[in-house]
């Protein structure tokens, strides 16, 4: 790892000031992505601004219509929180399936969103749920936040502060994990509301996306078994050493069908 300076501000305003003062500074949340990347010398920030003690970034609470999750809340805390289990049980289960217990004890939702790994789990949930991402300066809809491979709408020095998630009783996430890392080889988050279905796919390789053709088909009465015939753009999938693009695309259909079989959709 290259040398860097370190600071641990206790207030959001101080963290923002540290980041604004140095274009090469980076926020450090759980470090479960940033530190491995720095160890591999794929990133060399001049300064790490540790967010661990920034009190404005913590807290999990029921909010009007759903939940508000502080950016620094860990995957383990979100998985176990009674309000999340009650209002968005699929999100709690998703958080409990990220990586392994040690990763869940450190990794945060804010870090995961800011990183927007094309195989990460949360982006699929937030896109399907129509969640909103609060930053220090604005609130963004999930579909405006995720802009591509490891890319988000965050400006340099802008911090994710919290995530607003609508209550979602009828929702499920199914992931085919890459066996070594548990990242999604492919994952599908399916939501049903009175307005219809929403289906988001992660792990395709080109970044999280909504499978709108499947949403339309499900809205007009199709079932999981009918998804085989629903168009799914092959350009949204890439191959790597873990799986070919064709296999990933096939898994996406299976993941959505399995999500639809979840007891959450029984009623």
């Amino acid at each position: 790892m290259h040398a860097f300076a370190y600071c641990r501000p206790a207030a959001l305003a101080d963290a923002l000031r540290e980041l604004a003062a140095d274009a090469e500074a980076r926020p450090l949340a759980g470090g479960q992505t940033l530190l491995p990347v720095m160890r591999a010398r794929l990133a060399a920030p001049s300064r790490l601004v540790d967010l661990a003690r920034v009190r404005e970034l913590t807290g999990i609470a029921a909010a009007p219509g759903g939940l508000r999750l502080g950016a620094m809340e860990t995957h383990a805390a979100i998985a176990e929180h009674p309000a999340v289990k009650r209002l968005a049980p699929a999100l709690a289960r998703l958080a409990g399936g990220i990586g392994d217990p040690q990763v869940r004890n450190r990794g945060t939702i804010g870090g995961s969103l800011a990183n927007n790994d094309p195989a990460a789990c949360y982006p699929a949930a937030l896109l399907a749920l129509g969640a909103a991402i609060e930053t220090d300066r604005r609130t963004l809809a999930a579909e405006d936040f995720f802009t591509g491979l490891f890319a988000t709408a965050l400006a340099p020095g802008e911090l994710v502060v919290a995530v607003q998630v609508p209550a979602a009783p009828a929702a499920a996430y199914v992931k085919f994990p890459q066996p070594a890392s548990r990242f999604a080889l492919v994952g599908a988050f399916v939501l049903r509301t009175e307005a219809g279905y929403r289906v988001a796919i992660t792990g395709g390789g080109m970044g999280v996306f909504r499978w709108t053709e499947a949403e339309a088909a499900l809205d007009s009465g199709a079932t999981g078994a009918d998804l085989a015939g629903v168009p799914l753009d092959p350009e949204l999938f890439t191959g790597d050493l873990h799986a070919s693009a064709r296999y990933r695309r096939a898994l996406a259909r299976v993941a959505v069908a399995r999500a639809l079989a979840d007891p959450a959709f029984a009623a």
Partner: protein
Amino acid sequence: MEMRLEVNGTAHRLDLPERTLLVHALRDQLRLTGTHIGCDTSQCGACTVHLDGVAVKSCTMLAVQAEGRRITTIEGLAKDGALHPMQLAFHIHHGLQCGYCTPGMIMAGLDIVRRHPRPDLGTIRAELEGNLCRCTGYHNIIRAIAAGAEAMAAAATGERPGEGQGQ
């Protein structure tokens, strides 16, 4: 930079570069070499320690991030020369071969018991996702953790109250 770390109940003042990983501070500075390094990718769990009683990978954390927290390593489990019930269970149930993964397995095992006081074998298997073993094939590790959990529960209710949660 100067940092204060509390490890196994002892406070240390160390002067280390910011980039020092917790695992390197433990091994190279404090000579607590029971915490192992098994990979470069944050995947093997050989480096697992407890931070305020919760399992974390000490290779994926800066030493300075552990300031103000209680760090427990494998060396901190035995009390007065007597193995912790989870350590003893690994011994009795032959939960190791070369032993490289063992400190991490035991620290992860204790984190499982913290959350699931009487874990079934399926729970243990799923919860060991972050710990790799190249030797045993896992069966005896899983048995050892189940037995360790039983022994801890018995100790908590029986003759040695207060040891139920490890530390």
